Each structure stands twice: as structure tokens, then as C-alpha cells.
């Protein structure tokens, strides 16, 4: 029974199948919001309201010819998309959506899982860099260099921002942090600054405008993905979709009070809160233009990192006052 | 500056280097200059008349000779420097030392008419493809292309 339960947990909910469906839905939502912000229609004709469009795109890519460049490091090139998907899907399992017990830590919810999830979310960036490196295309190489350069910019502010609530709650476990804020929802307001920093950093992590520098199509064609096609590109796109869901879920857990209320209501909380974060990400995407890679780094260290530090100080002071 | 003034000024500046000046329409001047004087005349006009903007260089195949026209413009007028070079010895001086922006037009005229621009800084072809056969100069009048018969893909003729 336990084996079956674990399998269900891994493959169906909240594992691969659920993540696949929900991330395509989130992509649809993102595209629709982005389109409506621009006075366009967005996906319309595939399925009701175009809901099936991301799945159709995925299937279409699966059917396309898969080309591996001669000069590429073939083993690395072939295996990286799969690893990327596995990594973000694993990170998805750690979200305290429904299947956890506050009193008894399990292998999906334990003390320190916030560190693990942040770490797992950093991995796709490295995988992307390796993929670009393995392609040996000049555009990919430039894209890969940009991926790493950007990583140094946004990673520290993100960690600092997420650290604040963890310190406040006095726990390294996502479920406990969420539970802490569920009891004192007013304290969430003190984290607004950190939330802002984290949203911007997540935007950079997901490589969306204004941080879509590693695959800026008007500059370096496909950037990191230039040589990827067919199934592997489909997997990479899915990786990014799932990463979007997981990181918005992480932000929702840490900054928006988690997902209380058991299976059904908790799930509703999950949907509403992640969609809210994704809406903010779409808005950020629509309102800005792409900046240069040197501007990203200077922006991150001049504004994001100091703001995150201020948030941390405020949190520590507040904690001192409250106790 | 009226048209008559400009003619007078050009004649004063160029002093005999200009073979003839025509003024067929208001603001339009056609100056005939011999090829050896071209660079010097351009430099003089640039320095004294402010003739810095080269619009383009056009060539005409006139049978025995090539007529090359340099279309310059200044705010008051259009100056067209005309020069003729024989077809059997088609050498033209480069004016890029005076007008750096002339390089593309010189490259174009060189490949289209098969003339040789002396001292051109960049000899490569501009518009024709790399595998274009040598000795084919498309804008010469004797260069004719035969249009291939139209073949409509996937059907009867």
C-alpha cells in the first residue's frame, strides 16, 4: 500500500502528471494574461478558450525532428533536458500542498526542505549553462556565459529574501513557516519588501523579460536553446513551465501564508496563490523591456541585494521586539 | 545663393578643371570633369562649397565610354559631377580619400560595370554573389540575360 501510495505521489499527484497539467495550465494563464495586457487575444481556438494550446505545442514539438549537432558533446547534450525536468519535478514534490503532517516530518516535508528546494531551483540554471556549453554554437556559448553572469546577480537576493520569513518563523521547514504565518497573518505584511525582491529574482531565474537575456532572440537567436529542437526543446520548455509553478508555489508558501485547509481548500489556496504570483510575473514581463546583462548585475547588487538585506534587518528587529 | 552665384563660385574654385557646367533646371547642376581632375575637384568643392554629402554614384554605358555621375547635394543645390572614361581602359580614381562614405557606391559600380577603381580601400564585391562568374558585368548594355522558360512546380507546363 505504501509503495502504491508513493508511486501515486510521484507519478500522479502532486508528481509528474499533475505538474505537467498544472504547468501547462499556468503557461496558458501566463500567455492569456500577457496577451490581454497587450490588447491581444492569446490562445483562443485549441480547446475551450485555447486551454489546450500549451499541450498542443508540447505535442507538436515532440513530433518534430530532433537534431543533434555534430560538434556537440552528444551524451551531455542528450541527457541534460531529462535531468532538468527531473530536478524541477523533484522540487515540486517538496511543496507543502496537501500531503504532509506538521507533527511528523516525512521525506517530502522535513526540516531544511526550504534549502533543498532553493538548491533544486538553482540547478536548472546550471543545467542550462551546461546545455549551452555542450552545443558549441557561438550563440549558445554567449547565452551560456550570460546565464552564469546573471546567476551571480539574482541568486543572492533571492536567498536573502526567502531567508527573512524563515528567520521570523524560526524554522527551516516550509510547512512550519506556512503554519506560523497562518496563525499570525498580519506579520505577512512586514514581508512585502522581501516578496517584491523575490518576485523580481524569480523573474530573473525564469529568464523572462526583462531578464530574458540568455535567449534574447533578437540578439543571439535562441541563445542557450539555439541547437535544441524537437523532444529536447519540448522537455526544456516543460522544465521552465514547471519551474515557474514550483517557484511561484515557493513564494506563495513563504510570503503568502501557504495552503491551509486540507485537500480541497488547500488545493484551492494553491491554485489561487500561484496564479496570483504568476499574474505578477506576467505583469512584470509586460511592463518592461529587456535590459543588458551588465545592467542586470548592477541592478541586482545596487537595488535588489540591499533591499533584501534591509528586509532581513527589519525581520530580525521585529522578531526581537515580539519575543 | 542663387543659381548664377553657384555657377560663378564653382568656376572660380575649380579654375579650368571643369569642362562644362549645365544648369537645365533650377537647383540642378551638371559639371563635366575629366577623370584625372576628379579627386582634386571633389576636394576643392568639399572644402569651399561644403559639398560633403554624396548621394550616390550612377554609371551609364554609352557604348564606347562609361559615363559616371557623382550625385552630390548641398543645401542650396544638387551638383552632379559627370566624368567619362573609355571602355577599353576603364580606370577611375577613388574619391574615398575625400568622401569616406563613397566606398559602397564605388564597390557597386566596380562590379556592375567592370571598371577598376584605383586605390579603393575595399575591393570585394558588394552585391553580386561570391560565385558570380568573372567578367560578367550586368549593367553593361551588351550584357543580356536570357530569361529561362517558366516552369511551374508540380504541374503541366
Amino acid at each position, binding site marked *: 500500500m505504501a509503495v502504491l501510495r508513493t508511486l501515486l505521489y510521484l507519478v500522479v499527484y502532486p508528481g509528474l502528471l499533475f505538474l505537467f497539467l498544472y504547468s501547462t495550465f499556468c503557461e496558458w494563464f501566463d500567455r492569456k*494574461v500577457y*496577451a*490581454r*495586457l*497587450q*490588447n*491581444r*487575444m*492569446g490562445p*483562443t481556438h485549441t480547446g475551450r478558450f485555447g486551454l489546450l494550446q500549451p499541450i498542443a505545442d508540447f505535442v507538436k514539438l515532440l513530433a518534430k525532428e530532433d537534431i543533434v549537432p555534430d560538434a556537440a558533446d552528444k551524451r551531455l547534450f542528450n541527457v541534460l533536458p531529462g535531468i532538468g525536468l527531473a530536478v524541477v519535478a523533484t522540487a515540486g514534490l517538496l511543496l507543502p500542498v496537501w500531503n504532509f503532517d506538521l507533527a511528523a516530518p516525512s521525506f517530502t516535508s522535513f526540516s531544511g526542505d526550504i534549502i533543498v528546494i532553493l538548491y533544486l531551483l538553482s540547478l536548472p540554471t546550471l543545467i542550462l549553462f551546461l546545455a549551452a556549453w555542450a552545443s558549441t554554437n557561438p550563440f549558445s556559448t554567449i547565452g551560456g556565459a550570460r546565464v552564469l553572469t546573471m546567476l551571480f546577480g539574482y541568486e543572492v537576493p533571492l536567498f536573502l529574501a526567502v531567508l527573512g520569513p524563515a528567520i521570523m518563523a524560526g524554522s527551516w521547514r516550509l510547512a512550519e513557516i506556512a503554519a506560523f504565518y497562518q496563525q499570525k497573518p498580519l506579520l505577512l505584511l512586514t514581508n512585502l519588501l522581501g516578496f517584491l525582491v523575490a518576485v523580481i529574482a524569480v523573474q530573473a531565474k525564469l529568464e523572462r523579460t526583462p531578464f530574458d537575456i540568455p535567449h534574447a532572440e533578437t540578439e543571439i537567436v535562441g541563445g542557450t536553446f539555439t541547437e535544441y529542437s524537437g523532444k529536447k526543446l519540448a522537455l526544456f520548455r516543460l522544465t521552465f513551465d514547471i519551474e515557474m509553478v514550483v517557484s511561484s508555489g515557493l513564494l506563495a508558501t513563504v510570503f503568502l501564508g501557504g495552503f491551509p485547509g486540507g485537500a480541497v481548500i488547500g488545493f484551492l489556496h494553491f491554485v489561487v496563490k500561484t496564479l496570483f504570483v504568476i499574474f505578477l510575473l506576467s*505583469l512584470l514581463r*509586460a*511592463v*518592461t523591456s529587456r535590459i543588458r546583462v551588465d545592467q542586470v548585475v548592477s541592478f541586482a547588487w545596487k537595488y535588489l541585494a540591499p533591499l533584501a538585506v534591509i528586509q532581513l534587518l527589519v525581520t530580525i528587529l521585529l522578531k526581537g521586539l515580539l519575543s | 545663393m542663387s543659381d548664377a552665384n553657384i555657377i560663378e563660385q564653382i568656376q572660380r574654385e575649380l579654375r579650368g578643371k571643369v569642362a562644362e557646367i549645365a544648369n537645365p533646371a533650377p537647383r540642378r547642376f551638371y559639371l563635366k570633369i575629366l577623370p584625372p581632375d576628379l579627386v582634386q575637384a571633389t576636394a576643392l568643392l568639399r572644402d569651399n562649397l561644403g559639398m560633403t554629402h554624396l548621394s550616390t554614384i550612377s554609371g551609364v554605358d554609352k557604348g564606347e565610354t562609361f559615363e559616371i555621375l557623382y550625385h552630390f547635394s548641398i543645401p542650396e543645390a544638387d551638383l552632379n559631377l559627370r566624368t567619362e572614361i573609355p571602355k577599353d581602359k576603364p580606370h577611375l580614381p577613388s574619391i574615398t580619400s575625400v568622401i569616406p562614405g563613397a566606398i559602397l557606391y564605388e564597390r557597386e559600380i566596380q562590379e556592375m560595370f567592370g571598371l577598376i577603381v584605383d586605390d579603393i580601400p575595399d575591393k570585394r564585391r558588394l552585391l553580386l554573389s561570391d560565385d558570380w562568374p568573372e567578367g560578367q558585368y550586368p549593367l553593361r548594355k551588351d550584357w543580356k540575360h536570357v530569361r529561362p522558360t517558366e516552369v*511551374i*512546380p*508540380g*504541374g*503541366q507546363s
Partner: protein
Amino acid sequence: MKIAVFLPELIRHLFKKPNTVDYPFKKLQVPKNFRGTPYLNPDMCIVCRACERDCPAEAIEITSVNEAEKRFRMVIHNDRCIHCAQCVDSCPTTPKAMQIDSLYEIATDDRHKLKKDWVYVRAVLKPKAAAPAPQAAEPKV
């Protein structure tokens, strides 16, 4: 420098109807001067060949089928046509023998389907009908 100056405009449009016309399902009307596909009114054609001569794309071809009967064949190669409607302007008859329609969804997968031909007897019109058309017609040679 302000941050996010574009935001109000974007939010304002979030709940508005999209500006896109959902093309194959909804269609806009073509303007009245639209230049579609040229076609021939064989009753009026006096075979002056003005259209053939002026066609920039060489899309009109008039051949004689039978000299004695004054029977001609006109082919309009719509696959070459660039829809400039110069043939209509060049046509000297009133009403014009060359006409233009307002269809725009004319793409097909076979170029042969676009070729149209007419076999007809040359029309003999009263001299006054041969007067140049009111606007921008080319003089007869």
C-alpha cells in the same frame, strides 16, 4: 525617471475586448477601391492590346485563334498578376472590358487553377465608345 510608466495603460486594457480581428472566423469588409483579380468582359474587348502592353507582370496574354473570324483568346495569368489594376486603367472602352473584382482569398495550391482564359470574337464598338476613359487612361496608340 518614473518606474513602470506603461502600467496604467496595460491594466486598463486587461479587461477590454482584444483589438484583434479573429480573422478566418470574422472578416472585415474590403474598401470600395480594392484591387482584386482582373477579369475580362469579352463583349467589350476590341483587342487593342493596351492591357497586354502595359501589364508590368506580363500576366495578360492575347493570342489570335482564328484570323478570319477575328476570334481571340485572352489568358490572364493570375499567378503572375501583381494586382496593380493598370489593365483597367489602360482599357480604352466604356464600359471597360477589363474589370477587377474584390475577392481576396484567392490562394490555391496549384498555380494552374489561377489562370483564366476567354475565347471570344473581337467586339466592334461605336467610335464614341473608344474615347479614353475619364481617369488616367493611357492614350491609344
